[in-house]
């Protein structure tokens, strides 16, 4: 499928800041299931974008911009060719062996309730990690209610699971924490999700990948209860949201900041005419 993405992050300031510094993880890389044909990042302020590869192999851009300015806009535009691989993620950039992804982080620490959830999934197929992960995917999809009110970016897996509510980030954290607690390496993926019913979206998407011996990394989307398909565009992989966050930044001075995110994701024509 050919997917076209435009993603705008706009900060509007009541009092202009003296400067802004940000790290962006907004650039997808290729793997077996996706090929990036075109991608560009722009920042409204006058600045240099320094491109780096982070420890997980994600492409990041860092910039510092001198104010004052009333608003700051980060724009991303690109085209990605995707195909359905049944959730298998092959030929992605790997900088660590799977064992690293057993590591707990503050956002993905399994509490008793999450461990119980994981063990219940394990009990359904003691010797088959793939079945265990599918059981986990289904039970999360059933027990959790999608709700963007009660949680924030700093909400932990345990907090969200106790509420039985959360957004894709929270569901992914719970999935990852549960998998790791039963010794299955798992990681957090930040990206985009193309939907036929909704072209203009107000947030990116997140899902998980887990490592299954003999298969490799397999993706699971607990928000939709499916393995990702050609509709998922994978941007960044990390231990949790913090490592894959599209934007991490701060400003010097200024105040009264309003943030607006608009993301347009559409299936493009089979052939572009240019």
């Amino acid at each position, binding site marked *: 499928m050919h997917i076209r993405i435009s993603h705008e992050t706009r900060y509007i300031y009541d009092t202009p800041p003296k400067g802004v510094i940000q790290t962006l993880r907004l650039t997808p890389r290729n793997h077996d299931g996706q090929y990036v044909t075109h991608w560009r990042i722009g920042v409204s302020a006058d600045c240099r974008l320094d491109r780096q590869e982070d420890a997980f192999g994600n492409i990041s851009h860092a910039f510092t911009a001198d104010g004052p300015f009333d608003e700051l806009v980060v724009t991303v535009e690109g085209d990605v060719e995707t195909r359905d691989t049944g959730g298998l993620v092959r030929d992605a950039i790997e900088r660590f062996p799977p064992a690293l992804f057993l590591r707990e982080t503050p956002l993905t620490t399994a509490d008793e309730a999450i461990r119980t959830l994981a063990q219940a999934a394990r009990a359904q197929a003691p010797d088959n990690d793939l079945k265990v992960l599918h059981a986990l995917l289904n039970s999360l999809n059933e027990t959790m209610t999608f709700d963007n009110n009660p949680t924030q970016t700093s909400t932990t897996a345990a907090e969200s699971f106790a509420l039985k509510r959360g957004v894709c980030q929270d569901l992914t954290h719970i999935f990852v924490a549960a998998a790791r607690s039963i010794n299955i390496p798992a990681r957090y993926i930040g990206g985009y999700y193309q939907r036929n019913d909704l072209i203009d979206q107000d947030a990116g998407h997140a899902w998980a990948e887990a490592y299954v011996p003999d298969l490799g990394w397999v993706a699971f989307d607990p928000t939709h209860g499916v393995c990702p398909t050609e509709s998922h565009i994978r941007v960044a992989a990390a231990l949790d949201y913090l490592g894959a966050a599209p934007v*991490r930044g701060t400003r010097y001075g200024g105040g009264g900041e309003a943030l607006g995110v608009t993301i347009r994701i559409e299936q493009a024509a089979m052939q572009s005419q240019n």
Partner: protein
Amino acid sequence: MSVAFDEMTLPDGSVRPAYSGLKEWLGSLPPDILDLRRREAEVIFRRTGITFAVYGEADAAERLIPFDVLPRIISKMEWETLRRGLEQRVRTINAYIKDIYGRRDILRAGIVPEDLIFQNPVFRPEMNGQKVPHDIYVHVAGIDVVRVDADTFYVLEDNARTPSGVSYMLENREIMMRLFPELFSRHRVAPVEHYADELLATLKSVAPLTSSADPVVVLLSPGIYNSAYYEHSFLADKLGIELVEGRDLLIKGEVVYMRTTEGLKRVDVIYRRIDDDFLDPLAFRPDSALGVPGLMAAYQAGNVTLSNAVGTGIADDKAVYSYMPEITKFYLGEEPILKNVPTWRCREPEHLKYVLDHLDELVVKEVHGSGGYGMPIGPRADKATIATFRAKVKSNPRNFIAQPTLALSTCPTCVDEGIAPRHVDLRPFVLTGSDKIRIVPGGLTRVALQKGSLVVNSSQGGGTKDTWVLDT
């Protein structure tokens, strides 16, 4: 437990040569003079303001670390062995950290278990594949050494993150020279006063290759609420460098600048006394107000040296400690000069069984703990404490190691009842630059002031002594 080795007096009553001058001098002193000097020392310390905040004591935010006026004396020959052992230890640590964040040969060779690294909170994935200037990670190490007999020194603990205590080493020497000039005239004591010059030379030597011929070095402190703030300001002053906090630095285009009254000034080396977690809210804890946003990106771009490097905790973790002899052989192909204390790793079932069966004679330590908290000394612990620890160890074995109770050596110490032997350890400071390794002779001697106590930590009532390495 066997009788401890006393560094001054042998069991037959004879005095070891290094201490003969001290012994003679003590015999010639008029009565009460030591007590007088002791009180003078305390007055001086209070006036200079050298204090130490003790965590967990609400009523005593800051207090003096007791200072003992009798020096701890090390002979030239003993120091020579120690020095070679310390150099070897720190060369090992640097080679090991480079490998852990690089090729990971030691994991492939199966010498250190993979999960001990990857699941360790002090391992920093962000450092993976990251080059650091001159391939040196630990520029300032504090290696805690204890002695059990005339010939044997053990490394008790490596401190490869932000080791503190060197200000006491320097202050102790200064005060001793003021109080007892006649005692110095009877000995040839190797100087320590050049530590600040050595540290500055080390830090400048590891500046990024792109920096100017005279690199700008700053000391980054978490601020006045940190227990070691006194040391931060003391060292910055001795080194003649700026003492800064996170808000004094900023990043522009992946370069670090310091705000000064004359505008922005580029910074090449940051001697940071802030933990990894708080260094950069854009890379680590997002709620840290102590760090510098964007610092890691500047570091990754190779534009600044952080001293010590990020992620060096993977070398001084207590669980990793037990592998140090194998790690030394792996990288250097040498036998360790300084011994490791035999260590049982509770993560291994056979070791765990031994530990649980011998809890009353072992020292059990939390793998990630420091400062002597929650660390029962087996033979001295009561039954209830041992039972509590048994349950703790059983519930999470990989969080614990255990070691035999060592009979730490003793040194003569001024206490209420006169001069009596007290247990000591030693923290020498090892500086690793791109040109060479520098070690100021001696280090910080810590002494357990309670009779029979083996806990030398200043947070639990330990004191300090001036440490003399004799030049002849």
